[in-house]
């Protein structure tokens, strides 16, 4: 593999900022940002993605310093990352337009968890003080949509500032279910760490596990057995199908298409059962471990292949029916449009980005597992960027996933004679980067190992990066469009507020 991810330290904070802004303006995708506290100092790292690489550009803050120049004015996509850093470390981004709490609203001066420093912080009870509204105008009021949502959903609070009907502005408060995952990684051993990575964003278990495991494997310079790579692909693609079917189910439910909701729900259930037949867990948990996979697939290869074929046929029929149901499409067309330009500047990930004209798919641009050999045809759309385009992309991805699964099963059959599924990893200290294309988009893991234990793990979920775009897609839409737009994003709050 040609891909690398080499950390690069720039001690001078000002130079660091200029460098990140310049590279972002030169067209490199801003893929995230995190801070790391060691006993001596705090470093702030920006992740920049180009074709084939993810670069970490870091700066160490002067000892005792609690601020650095904000990236957000030059790199708007850093808006939430810098708020997150303030919440977790108490480090201020000077010049940030609005450094309101995002994940952990604490009182000024309260001790911050500071992941990486190895000390256990006291329990942190977030305060509930409301953040002031952003809009003024006659008759405007705020509808709190959450944290306890309507229906079986994850907890998140959307504050809709509205004069009634329209949604001119929306605020997202994801802090309620913050679980302190990043801190929890500390001091785990790398093998246990994958269990926590699986739970960082439960509906993208496999993608997180793969991203985490490849970070460790890349750090160790290990190459995992081909059969393990294929099994990873099979589970990752089943996960993608299940997620996309979940989106379709929720969209059909929002449009009150009873039969379609039931059919898609049934298909999803069958995918979940296929997953549990293959590995014993309906979410593919326990499949991936650093160095390979834990067990072979629990089904006969031919049986699995024909199950996949049957499923695709069933799903395809219902897909065609749904996409020719006028009352369904009416609700999706031109709903929640994300302009291509904004998607590109923000670096929108996954199906959301691809529905707005972005062609990047990590499985193609930075192949991992067996994707390089299997060859992925990334889905794309004409770039309308609305809910319909996002669903269209998902359907295309479902079919590509089925193709990949069948192809991987066929190749797995060839490896049946060589049942090696994992390699033992040497203990190597240092920083490794791993990634995977989750159903929601690119997942990045920066894993720092010290003395054989995890010192600092930064999972960057696609949900966190993409949810910020939620602000930008409501112009012209009204209350009843909300469930469609939310479902069409298909994000997980667990991944946002981890």
């Amino acid at each position: 593999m040609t891909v690398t991810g080499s950390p690069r330290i720039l001690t001078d904070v000002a130079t660091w900022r200029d460098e990140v802004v310049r590279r972002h303006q030169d067209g490199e995708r801003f893929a995230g940002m995190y801070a790391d506290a060691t006993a001596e100092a705090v470093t702030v790292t920006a992740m920049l993605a180009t074709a084939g690489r993810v670069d970490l550009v870091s700066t160490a803050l002067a000892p005792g310093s609690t601020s650095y120049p904000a990236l957000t004015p030059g790199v708007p996509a850093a808006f939430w990352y810098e708020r997150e850093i303030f919440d977790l470390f108490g480090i201020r981004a000077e010049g940030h337009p609005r450094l309101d709490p995002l994940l952990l609203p604490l009182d000024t001066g309260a001790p911050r968890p500071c992941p990486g420093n190895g000390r256990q912080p006291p329990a942190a009870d977030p305060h509930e003080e409301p953040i002031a509204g952003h809009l003024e105008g006659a008759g405007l009021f705020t509808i709190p949509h959450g944290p306890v949502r309507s229906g079986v959903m994850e907890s998140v609070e959307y504050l809709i500032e509205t004069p009634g009907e329209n949604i001119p502005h929306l605020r997202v408060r994801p802090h309620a279910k913050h679980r302190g995952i990043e801190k929890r990684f500390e001091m785990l051993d790398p093998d246990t760490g994958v269990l926590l990575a699986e739970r960082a964003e439960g509906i993208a278990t496999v993608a997180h596990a793969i991203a985490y495991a490849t970070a460790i494997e890349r750090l160790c310079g290990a190459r995992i057995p081909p059969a393990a790579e294929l099994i990873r692909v099979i589970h990752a693609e089943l996960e993608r199908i299940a997620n996309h079917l979940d989106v379709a189910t929720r969209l059909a439910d929002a449009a009150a298409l009873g039969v379609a909701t039931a059919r898609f729900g049934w298909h999803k259930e069958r995918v979940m059962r296929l997953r549990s037949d293959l590995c014993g867990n309906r979410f593919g948990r326990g499949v991936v471990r650093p160095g390979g996979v834990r067990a072979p697939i629990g089904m006969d290869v031919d049986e699995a292949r024909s199950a996949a074929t049957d499923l695709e046929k069933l799903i395809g029929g219902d897909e065609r029916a749904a996409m020719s149901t006028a009352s369904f499409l009416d609700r999706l067309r031109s709903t929640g449009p994300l302009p291509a330009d904004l998607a590109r500047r923000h670096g929108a990930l996954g199906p959301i980005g691809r529905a707005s004209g972005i062609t990047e798919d990590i499985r193609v641009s930075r192949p991992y597992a067996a994707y390089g050999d299997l060859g992925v045809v990334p889905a794309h759309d004409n770039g309308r960027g609305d809910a319909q385009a996002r669903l269209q992309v998902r359907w295309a991805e479902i079919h590509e996933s089925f193709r990949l699964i069948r192809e991987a099963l066929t190749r797995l059959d060839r490896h049946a004679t060589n049942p090696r599924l994992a390699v033992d990893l040497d203990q190597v200290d240092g920083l490794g980067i791993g990634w995977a294309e989750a159903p929601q988009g690119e997942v990045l893991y920066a894993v720092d190992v010290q003395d054989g234990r995890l010192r600092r793990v930064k999972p960057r979920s696609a949900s966190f990066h993409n949810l910020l775009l939620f602000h930008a897609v409501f112009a012209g839409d009204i209350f009843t469009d909300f469930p469609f737009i939310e479902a069409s994003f298909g994000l997980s709050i667990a991944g946002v507020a981890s």
Partner: protein
Amino acid sequence: MTTAALILTSLCCLASAAVVDVIAGPQRPALRVVPYIGVLGGAVLIAVAGFRADLGHGGTLDLGTTLGFGHSHLVADPLAGLFLALTGVVTTAIALVFIGWVGTAGAVPHRGLGVATALAVASVVVILLADNAFVFLFAWETLSVAFYLLAGYRREARDAVRASMLTFGFSKSSGGLLLIAFSLLYAGSDSFSFADWHGVTGAAHSAAYALAIAAFAIKVGVVPVQVWMPTGYTAAPGPARALMSAVAANVGFYGMWRIFGVLGTPPTWLAVVLVIAAALTALLGIAHAAVQADLQRLIAYSSVENGGLITSGYAIALAGAAAHLTDLVALGLLTSCLQMVAHAFAKSSLFLSSALLEQHAGTGRLDRLRGVGAQLPWAGTSFTIGALTLAGLPLTLGFVSEWYLLESVMQLFRLHSQTLALSIAAAGALIALAIGFAGFTFVRLVALTILGGRGQRAASRSAAAPTAWLTRLGLALPAIGCISVAAVSPWEIRFLSHGLAPLAPAHATAGALQAPWVLQPVYGGFSALSPSWLAVELPLLAVATLVVVTVFTRGSFLTVRRVPAWRSATGGVTGGARYTSFGFANATRHVLANVLMTRSSLTTLAAGTAAADSEFTGPDLPDGEQPDGAPDESAVVLALEGADVPGATYSTDVVEIVEAYLYRPVLGPLRRLVALAKRLQSGRLDAYVGYMLIVLVALLAVVVAMA
């Protein structure tokens, strides 16, 4: 006491009221209420006189030839009696509230209100009794002056001048149109007396008919001459709004009724034009009422809607006359009378109670008026009943009248003229829509303004709660009217039938009674309704349900555990945290975007960007493919990165179509014309002599031509 004596005494009461107000002024609190006591006395006498006249005990006051233009009388015939009775009853309630209201601090800053009130009532009485054009026109003009005084009374208010000028301007136009109409009729009959105009025929008849109805339409606010109404009513002080809308506006209807009685069968096109205009008025009025952010303007716009509904009934009667269907004439007139009575009671309820609510809260902004019913229970109750009446809910007078209105629209199949039938069908659809939106409009008022829990921005207490029993009586009177008259609506119909006798044969109007307590739309075998039975049945059913549920749940139905309202378990939000009145109305702004031309925009001062997301740009937006308001790039930047930009403002506005597209374009040329006309007034004597010469020559030319 004879009817004539009653009327004379009441006019004296009104005159003395005006005199006291002019002499004493509002400075001495003891004397401040005197003018209104005078008005109250006058109103009670008028009511009695009206009832007498309606039931056939009319009377005549001979004015002799003192006024010139021939022998003139004040005649109280049954039709005048009907309107007199309504005027008297409603004015009584208004005067009662006035008495309490003027006692509060700052309500009456200077003299003039008493004069204007007495003048308005007296003008109305004289208009109703006039038997010739000259007296009628004279009173019409004094009513215009009274309106001008009322709308401009609150001099300190920002738009008082504009409102009073607008009101006066339209009133004068109304008078001008009447003058032309009456002149035409005079030319055709050689008499100023209404009774002599029967013989006028041909083009003069049609033209005079149309001009007179246009003049009266201004008074009742039919499109496109309704624009003065919301502004004019809103500008008037407190209870005077009720006087303007629930009493004085009725002379417009009286005029229509009277002109129909005098001129008889109208040209068909007039009925067609009128029914369409009336239905459009209803829809436009309620569309704007539904989205108003100010309580008084909302009620005023609802007057426009009701003007449309009442005129629709009248237009159906005209259609019936044009088609020579006596029963349809009876039905149309009866319908519009019922709607007029319902409106008069409900509107006086609303305007009287809202004056107190607004005074108490110190604001008329609906977003800040919340749950005021709990603070002023009498005003709140009266308001609620008035609102439910205009929403047309069962048990109220509005239900009966709107039932009749829809029933009369459905009689269009009896018309042989396709044009008439089609226009009534179109009007019927608009009317039904307007009635539906009326419900939505008043739900908002009752639910949020009267009952809604108090918001964070609690309305401030600015004045002591009115406790005077007179005020309560004044508030209760129209509200009780809304409910009780509905319960005895067969009696009401008999009363109206008497009053309408000069226009439609009593046996036809009495056909609305299928049985003593069952109503039908004049034509038999079509449908039936018994509001009286409903008034018994619905409360009984409600009580029975309550009893059954209580028994079945063994009383636990009545035990209540109070917990905070469910708000998605949020920890709280800042700013406007609950559904605003504005927000509730926003659905209407969108649904009726084509009528209201709703525009929304997001602007920010700091960033210097402005992004109009014009999702509803009115009729010219092609439906379909084009994404609704594809967001402007700057709006996206604002939403994503900016949201933090201080001073981001979101606003939603509606456009008054008639004002914006009919009047505003001609305003500029008109102003220039006025500037041009000013030059004529050079102040030079020879110029004026020259003008007089020109006028004289012109007059001579006209006389010669007509001879």
